[in-house]
């Protein structure tokens, strides 16, 4: 009896020491394991260090090797469990708790613990020198970083001074880094020079794949991570693919030829290439798909604070900017540039996002020179006998429009604007210039009008640096204290009420613990933008993809919110 109880005790102790691995089970998946997936990327990676990767050529391949606490659902929202099996907010909304899975291992076999999570945030993410993006997105509306505490062996908490709902995204989507590998280089400050392209075989991660080989300009070879923590409904360990062959190509035309020759399994074609592929699809055994409009955006911004007070008055005039919404023939650009595979945009949130507010359609913006003239008229503009548009003081309206030379889409948009403005009697001097010059002119507010684009996300909250008054990219109306050396002074600065409200919304949304509240705030934000058009949005290309029909996906449809390769661990080959 005694012996038995000792044995039992030992067994329990052993059980505690080697807790069973808490796999994540995808009940509905039942694919066939094995095979190699052939995919490609445009250009070589610049680094394998996730925290210093900026271009998609680096972040895309790295995405297969890292794992996050939460994962995105089909709408791109942080609602699915990842390394965390459970997460919740405290009653007062100030503290965000995360409970991680037990018994997981890194791709090198080392145990994954709560220390890794703590260290990733406190020692890497929160120190500005350790990441390219810095810690700005972890700050709450009082500009405070959270206090991080390890509650018990599997639970960690983040406490801000105000409720911080973006924690779900900022904490949930931050890849956890291996403390046992990186602790030393982070401590001695050489982390930015670590895990460069020469170190491809040293990477350790929690993602479905690990990099086994990298040949410059040729390919990155991935193999399945034997320690990956997801299984399917039949208990088969994921990912299904044994290998992932990521070809590095330099040119869209070459990649198209490679896909047509059957050397790639999936391809995201340009709008120009898509109709031809769709035509051949049935015969070749391909499946094509069209998702919604992309999340990134191209827009025109007018500078409220140029060095010329006359022009400032025009650009601050709501009717003036609205006239440009009407005067832009978006359908013509979509037809000529995107083969019709695009959608016009009238607000800052893409219709592909769950936050899109369809009510902005009540403004019924469309291409109409008559309505553009009406808006100008309401704004106090008039026309001379020869058709030249003049403001209330009789100054002829003429301004300079910049964009970065070589960007076909932006140049086409600019040309359409020049055309539309000419029909309104407004002379727009279009100057395509070097990208760096555009950035310089934008950021020191010496431009008049610029066509530019920014990357987007399903969550409008990630645009804080653009929409907040003190944001570094609030380039249409920089406040006087933005840069003490520039020409913007207190007495020339005008802050409309709706700008204040947008700033307020961006501060409130981080504390809106109830989902509906946050949705409502962003709905209001979109209505303000649609009405006042501080920047005039143009259009977005639709999301396009084509893949071989022997490839099986765990989702029915890919969209800009899921992106290509959504839940790649669940893809398989027949």
């Amino acid at each position: 009896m005694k012996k038995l109880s000792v044995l039992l005790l030992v067994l329990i102790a052993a059980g505690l020491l080697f807790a069973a691995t808490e796999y994540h089970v995808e009940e509905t998946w039942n694919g066939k394991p094995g095979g190699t997936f052939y995919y490609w990327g445009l250009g070589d990676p610049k680094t394998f260090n996730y925290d210093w990767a900026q271009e998609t050529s680096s972040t895309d391949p790295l995405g297969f090797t890292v794992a996050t606490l939460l994962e995105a659902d089909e709408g791109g929202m942080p609602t699915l469990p990842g390394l965390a099996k459970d997460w919740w907010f405290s009653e007062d909304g100030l503290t965000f708790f995360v409970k991680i899975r037990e018994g997981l291992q890194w791709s090198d076999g080392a145990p994954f613990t709560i220390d890794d999570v703590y260290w990733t945030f406190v020692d890497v993410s929160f120190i500005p020198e350790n990441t390219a993006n810095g810690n700005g997105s972890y700050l709450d509306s009082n500009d405070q970083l959270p206090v991080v505490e390890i509650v018990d062996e599997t639970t960690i908490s983040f406490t801000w001074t105000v409720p911080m709902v973006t924690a779900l995204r900022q904490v949930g989507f931050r890849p956890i880094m291996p403390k046992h590998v990186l602790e030393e280089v982070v401590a001695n400050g050489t982390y930015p020079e670590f895990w460069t392209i020469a170190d491809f075989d040293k990477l350790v991660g929690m993602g479905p794949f690990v990099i086994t080989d990298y040949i410059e300009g040729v390919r990155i070879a991935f193999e399945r991570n034997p320690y990956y923590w997801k299984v399917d409904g039949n208990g088969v360990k994921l990912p299904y693919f044994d290998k992932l062959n990521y070809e590095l190509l330099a040119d869209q035309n070459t990649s198209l030829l490679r896909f047509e020759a059957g050397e790639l399994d999936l391809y995201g074609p340009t709008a120009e290439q898509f109709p031809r592929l769709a035509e051949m699809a049935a015969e070749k055994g391909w499946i094509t798909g069209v998702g919604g409009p992309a999340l990134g955006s191209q827009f025109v911004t007018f500078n409220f604070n140029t060095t010329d007070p006359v022009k400032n008055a025009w650009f601050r005039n709501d009717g003036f900017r609205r006239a440009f919404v009407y005067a832009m023939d978006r359908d013509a650009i979509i037809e000529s540039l995107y083969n019709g595979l695009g959608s016009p945009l009238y607000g800052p949130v893409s219709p592909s996002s769950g936050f899109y507010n369809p009510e902005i359609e009540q403004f019924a913006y469309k291409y109409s020179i008559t309505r553009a003239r009406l808006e100008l008229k309401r704004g106090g503009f008039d026309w001379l006998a020869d058709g030249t548009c003049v403001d209330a003081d009789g100054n002829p309206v003429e301004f300079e429009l910049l964009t970065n030379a070589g960007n076909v889409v932006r140049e086409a948009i600019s040309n359409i604007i020049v055309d539309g403005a000419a029909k309104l009697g407004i002379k727009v001097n279009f100057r395509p210039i070097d990208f760096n010059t555009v950035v310089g002119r934008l950021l020191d507010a010496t431009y008049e009008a610029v066509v530019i684009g920014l990357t987007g996300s399903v969550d409008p909250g990630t645009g804080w640096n653009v929409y907040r008054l003190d944001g570094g990219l609030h380039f249409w109306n920089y406040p006087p204290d933005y840069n003490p050396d520039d020409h913007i002074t207190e007495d020339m600065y005008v802050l409309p009420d709706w700008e204040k409200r947008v700033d307020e919304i961006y501060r409130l949304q981080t504390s809106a613990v109830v989902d509906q509240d946050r949705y409502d705030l962003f709905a209001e934000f979109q209505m303000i933008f649609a009405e006042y058009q501080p920047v005039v949005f143009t259009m977005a290309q639709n999301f396009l993809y084509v893949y071989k029909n022997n490839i099986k996906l765990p989702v029915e449809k890919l969209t800009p919110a899921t992106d290509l390769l959504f839940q790649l661990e669940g893809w398989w080959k027949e």
Partner: protein
Amino acid sequence: MLKYIVRRLILAIPVLLGVSVLAFMIISAAPGDFLDAYRLNPSISKEQLTVLESQFGLDQNVFVQYFKWLGNVLTGNFGYSFSYRIPVFELVWRRLGATLLLSISTMIFTWGIGIPLGIYSALHQYSPSDQAFSFLAFIGISIPNFFFALLWLFMAAKTGWFPIGGIISQNFGDMSFFGKIGDYLWHVVGPMVTLGTSGLAGLMRQMRGQLLDQLRQDYVLFARAKGMPEKNVIYKHAVRNAINPIVTMFGYALSGLLGGAVLTETVFGWPGMGRLVIEALNAQDLFLVMATLLLSAVLLVIGNLLADLLLAWVDPRIRYRLS
């Protein structure tokens, strides 16, 4: 001779210094800097940008930057690439093999075909074959490289005779040693022909013109008059005299060995220096641009020196003295 070489190399130092000053100042004078792409990233705040500026040393005066860089270069440290975060010559080194494979095979192709064709054309002046070769050469020179490359890839995709770009096959790892060499050669044909055809015409016409000039000289008439066999007249006398300007051209061609060819490399997906350099220029990756510029300046100096030495070797009339 050795003294002459040493003297030329010493004279090269001020040249290289001048190149470095000019290049550094011009790059710095261009608007913006490496961080401009970061500045338009919505998730990077103003505060973070100042952190990055000081990390990259971009917040300092351009002269301070230059002398710091020069000081490091003198100790053998050419700096880190901003975007790759590894020493610049390590990056160059990684691309060296592919670049040399392409440029040397292109050189062999161009020179190996261009010179014999030039000689043949000169000897058969105005014959139908001369006209035909000139016609083909001019077609080669007038098709833009990127377009020729696309045509080639299209042909490769349709026929399957050649790979669709790249430098090695997908199953490269499973090949035998000779299989691997064959695979490299099979892949190099496309970019080599693309680059070669554009250089072929110039070389061929040059050789043809030079040789025709020599064949009209009095000494050729004399040699023929005294009954020397036609073979000897041409190859021992006329060609040797005609080759001098070609040797000079060869020296310059050497300096282009590591330059890469951006458009052709891009279309064929060839991992050469050209793409590295153009990306570095676009991103204003300062030290990487400086390293590649200095490298080509050094190669130009060496190429010139080699051309001069070769010239002395092929033409006994030329002697170099220290004066």
